[in-house]
């Protein structure tokens, strides 16, 4: 734990303990410690720095200060639920659990409490169906979009024909890692490839068996749903068996600097999905430097600035705070409630003009949300690692995915959830 984080935490705790202020409270369930801290820290730093930027540069949102609360989960579901219970009374506007396991647990709780969840690129995929999941949003992309984007990329590389090709999924043996399986199985039927499934147990440091199997079976492509140490280990093992890196494609949670750097030059050419652009060549970084870094207010030591997961933290915070801005506009009051926030998230839209105004031009696709569609545009891009330059580069635009397959699966899964929980179609 960094001293600065401790100080920020202590100050935050004091602020929380003070008499109620008209603040907009954004809790962040982080993991700065434990086996997944390598991924959790840059994300949390990006998220926290964006909130600090809003307070320092703009005086908050609509003139109301942002009250940012961190709660440490260690990527542990039980601790995540505790964090939710401990912070929901603070007037929390939205939860971004940063864990599929925690998201699954919070869906019924947050819905009952009337607090929205934004599980950006993770969580329960079928929550994209707003007719069933009133308080859960997973825009701008979800796992099934990711699975389809991987297959579409492989289709592009093979002139649209992958019949008979062998594709292996190496996945974290958890709720998160299992999410894409159903979609890949449907796509297997549709396109005629052969899918093999290779689970890896937590934390994923030992993968010899899986990669020996890959070496034996020689799949044409390998895709990965990994997190934490599982990612660099898999990339190193792939390099060890001399698997062609350009045929190895991870999900967006398996495509950050910490995943590829330990493998050194061997990681060159590795690909992953992307839900936003990469690098620090965006105007927002000048503002961050002026209002956050140079004032000594950065959440971390600055080493993660511009990294993939730092950018994701910025993006997550931006999407949440822009929804809060819309909620102020829709409700006509500055001090909004979680219910106002939910309504705004359902009416949310963001375009290139707005993102450019926020200092993030050409950063992520434009999209809008509706009562029926809480999942966003269903777009994903591919990025590739250049080991010599030590940077990620986008190698495709944000491309369409297989809505026909994904929407049918979303309808099926959400219908089952609705029947189980006696939920009726709320969008009429």
């Amino acid at each position, binding site marked *: 734990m*960094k001293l600065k984080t401790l100080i920020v935490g202590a100050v935050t705790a004091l602020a929380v303990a003070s008499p109620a202020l008209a603040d907009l409270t954004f809790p962040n369930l982080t993991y700065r410690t434990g086996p997944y801290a390598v991924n959790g820290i840059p994300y949390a730093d990006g998220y926290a720095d964006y909130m600090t930027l809003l307070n320092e540069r703009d005086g908050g949102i609509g003139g109301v200060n942002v009250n940012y609360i961190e709660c440490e989960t260690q990527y542990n579901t039980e601790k995540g639920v505790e964090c939710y219970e401990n912070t929901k009374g603070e007037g929390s506007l939205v939860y971004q659990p940063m864990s599929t396991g925690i998201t699954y647990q919070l869906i019924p709780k947050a819905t009952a409490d009337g607090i929205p969840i934004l599980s950006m690129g993770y969580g329960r995929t079928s929550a994209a169906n707003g007719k069933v999941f009133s308080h859960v949003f997973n825009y701008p992309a979800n796992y099934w979009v990711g699975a389809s984007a991987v297959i579409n990329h492989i289709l592009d590389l093979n002139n649209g024909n992958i019949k008979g090709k062998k594709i292996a999924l190496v996945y974290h043996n958890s709720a998160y890692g299992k999410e894409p399986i159903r979609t890949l199985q449907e796509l297997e039927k549709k396109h005629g490839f052969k899918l093999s499934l290779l689970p890896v147990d937590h934390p994923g440091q030992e993968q010899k068996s899986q990669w020996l199997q890959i070496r034996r079976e020689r799949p044409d492509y390998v895709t990965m749903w990994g997190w934490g140490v599982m990612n660099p280990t898999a990339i190193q093992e792939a390099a060890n068996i001399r698997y062609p890196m350009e045929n190895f494609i991870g999900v967006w949670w398996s495509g950050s600097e910490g995943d590829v750097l*330990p493998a050194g030059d061997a990681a060159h050419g590795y690909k992953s999905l992307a839900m936003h652009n990469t690098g620090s060549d965006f105007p927002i970084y000048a503002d961050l430097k002026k209002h956050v870094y140079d004032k000594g207010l950065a959440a971390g030591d600055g080493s993660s600035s511009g990294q993939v997961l730092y950018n994701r933290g910025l993006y997550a915070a931006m999407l949440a705070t822009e929804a809060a801005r819309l909620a102020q506009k829709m409700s006509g009051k500055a001090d909004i409630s979680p219910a106002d926030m939910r309504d705004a998230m359902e009416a949310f839209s963001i375009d290139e003009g707005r993102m450019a105004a926020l200092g993030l031009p050409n950063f992520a696709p434009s999209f809008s949300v509706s009562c029926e569609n809480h999942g966003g545009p269903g777009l994903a891009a591919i990025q590739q690692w250049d080991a010599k330059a030590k940077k990620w580069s986008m190698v495709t635009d944000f491309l369409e995915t297989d809505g026909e397959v994904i929407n049918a699966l979303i309808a099926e899964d959400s219908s089952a959830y609705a029947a189980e929980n006696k939920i009726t179609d709320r969008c009429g």
Partner: protein
Amino acid sequence: MPAEFYYGVEVFLNGLMAGVMYSLVALGFVLIFKASGIFNYAQGIMALFAAMTLVGFQEGQIPFAHLINAVFGTEVHHFGWTMPAFFAILFALGVMLLFAFLVEKLILKHLVNQEPIILFMATIGLAYFMEGFGDLMWGSNVKKLDIGIPQGGNFWIEENTAFLGGADFYGFYLDTLDIYATVIAAVLVTSLVLFSQYTKTGRALRAVADDHQAALSVGISLRSIWVIVWGIAGFVALVAGIMWGSKSGVQFSLSLIALKALPVLMLGGFTSIPGAIIGGLIIGVGEKMFEFLIGAPLLGGATENWFAYMLALVFLVFRPQGLFGEKIIERV
């Protein structure tokens, strides 16, 4: 012979190599338990801390840079030099020896004659302290560890064994890093056994392991022995940290390799150095062969973690003290 048979042999060989990696971790536990009866919960963190320290020296990282910057408003991170791996290993070893001295001075000295459970609890506290201390000292970002040991499938072995199984067999895959680990583990164990059998300190160490009171009565300094044992365990942790850190980078998860050592200890016994090696090999081969023959084709895979513990439990039923552990009879 069909290719499948040779792939089975390949899995067996890789199981042996994996077992050696587990044994490297288990050895640290055995050394401390044997000499002091303490189950050192901090052994995994010691491996992480040793590896972080090694990388820190190699890269010329300024310790506590973030703390210094936060307090003094500076922007310092590196000294501006890099250190050759050999010297970095020596310096890291020096830090681990200093660590052993401090553990004895600040913790163990005050807990002499306490119940084993108290000492165990102390090591839990030590583990959590070191986790935070290591992060504060070297940062929590993932670090690449490279001391020049090559990685990846050994070309020579692959090419010269590919003829065995026909067109569907691609030769035996053996990771060069694992081969190095095997040689290093063999040298380490031999050195430890020779040290323990043929040196004065080694004999004193065995005397303390057999009976603290009797050892004290003949003038052996318990405190010196503890410093030596924790120092050796620190060295073993450094070796384990190097081997595991080279595979997947240096980060918090490195400390979780201790989880792989527990079934090895249950099987091999907590007091036997050869037991740690044999136990590691049995666990490594057992879990890999089970995954190959039953886990992956019939159970959907990911059986290694639980199978290792199940195998150890089966052994426990028949030999509670482990294969090579001492049977302790306490009379009321």
